[in-house]
């Protein structure tokens, strides 16, 4: 993951706290990819992620006075995570993305998906898998979704997630476990949609019954 360029974070934050917008914009440029990525993975929608990212930066600038040292990036990620969390709670009234809508996501929304893969076939497979996975994440309840993304997309440890979301470490642990198990179940249930190379189990082994013990490749 991106850890930011070689920038004097402390100096820039201090200058921004004094009202230096240019200094803050340097921080924006340094961290906007990570902030947007987090928002996109939680929300699953490019437009909503853009809005959340911009709002998070504005909110961060306005509340810079509440930043009391530590990692500015962590503080920023907490800001955007909470914004996404609020957005998810707002969306709760709307019907959640159904399992049936899997595979119907707009590929143009994720133009990056085709990048970084040499062969077109691999690229197509990866794109399909990513799309599938993101769709599955979006079906998770907001509580679990935020924790899963912070952990497995952002690479935060339990304590960091607990600080960001404002829940006990034990709750982080159980929510993450439930999120992962549910995601696994979703993937297993829809394994036909997955590219063969990325399936969780070998089709031959679990024919007709519960997933048989895998020998581990």
């Amino acid at each position, binding site marked *: 993951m991106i850890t930011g360029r070689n920038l004097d974070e402390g100096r820039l934050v201090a200058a921004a706290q004094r009202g230096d917008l240019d200094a803050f914009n340097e921080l*924006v440029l340094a961290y906007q990819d990570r902030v947007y990525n987090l928002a996109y993975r939680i929300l699953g929608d490019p437009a909503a992620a853009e809005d959340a990212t911009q709002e998070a930066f504005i909110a961060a600038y306005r509340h810079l006075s509440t930043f009391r040292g530590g990692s500015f990036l962590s503080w920023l990620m907490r800001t955007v995570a909470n914004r996404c969390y609020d957005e998810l709670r707002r969306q709760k009234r709307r019907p959640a993305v159904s399992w049936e809508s899997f595979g119907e996501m707009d590929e143009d929304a994720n133009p990056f998906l085709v990048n970084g893969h040499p062969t077109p076939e691999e690229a197509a497979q990866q794109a399909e898998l990513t799309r599938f*996975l993101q769709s599955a994440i979006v079906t998770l309840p907001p509580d679990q979704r935020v924790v899963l993304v912070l952990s497995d997309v952002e690479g935060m440890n339990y304590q960091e997630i607990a600080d960001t979301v404002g829940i006990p470490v034990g709750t982080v642990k159980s929510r993450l476990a439930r999120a992962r198990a549910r995601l696994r179940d979703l*993937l297993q249930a829809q394994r036909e949609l997955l590219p063969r190379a990325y399936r969780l189990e070998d089709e031959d082994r679990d024919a007709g019954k519960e997933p048989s013990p895998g020998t581990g490749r």
Partner: protein
Amino acid sequence: MLGKNRARERVDEWLSAYIDGALSPRERARLEARLAEDPDLRARLESLQRTVALVRGLPAVPAPRNFLLTPAMVRPPAPTVRQPPSAARRLAPALTLATAVSGLLCVVLLVGNLLTAGGGGPGAAAPVPMAAYETGPSPQVQETQEALAKKAPSSPEATVTPEPARLDSAATVSETAVPEMEAWSEVAPSPLLEGGPIPPEMGGMGGGAGPGPSLREPGEPEEPEAEASPTPTPEPQPSERVAAAGEERVTAAPPTVEVTPTSPPVEMPGGERAQRVTSWLPVGGLALLTMTLAVLSIRAWRAR
């Protein structure tokens, strides 16, 4: 089923924490021992590990654009937009309070005025109490005018008699006599002039008044008073004579009769009018102020 599900959840929690390396060494040792002998558990761990790996392998999505902040974005919107309403918001309650206070004062004054005015009776009766308070004799004098024509009540006499008595008997100048003296001088300048000796003697009005009537005896309406002057000693007579004098005044000497009642009444209505003006003016002013304040406060509330 529920118990089984819960057990599964608990196992998943262990496996999840195991993947993250978040188990205590003891828990980890226990789990690893179980994994070694339970292929199903191994399979579950593997599927979970693969799932986590898939999520962790999700490509980072770069920001589709720059999210640089502009001064307009971070400009505090509250002060510029909400300044005027906030001023009105602050003023509105104060204006309303002022309206209420001024309205209350207006009502209190109005009621007070009505009570003072209405105490003696409606309308025309209003001046009476004030006149009685300031110049007591006036109603009695009015009564005397009417009463004297018919009969001679005792109370009017009492009021009327002392004046001439003082005038004549007491050479000392009494202040109560002054109005009558003024009237006297106005009404009958000619007799005074005729009775020339008066001015040279005293020069003062009271002094002149004393001998004045007596000198004028032969003359005219003043005669009775002049006669009344010696009378104070004989008791029964003065009343009759005064009564007679009153009658004479009414009939023969309108000027003197008028003098007694008019001089105080003229002041009374004037003073009362002034009183009315001074007491009703604040009421009107307060009413105006209340209305203005009410309009202002309504505007202030609407501006909010």
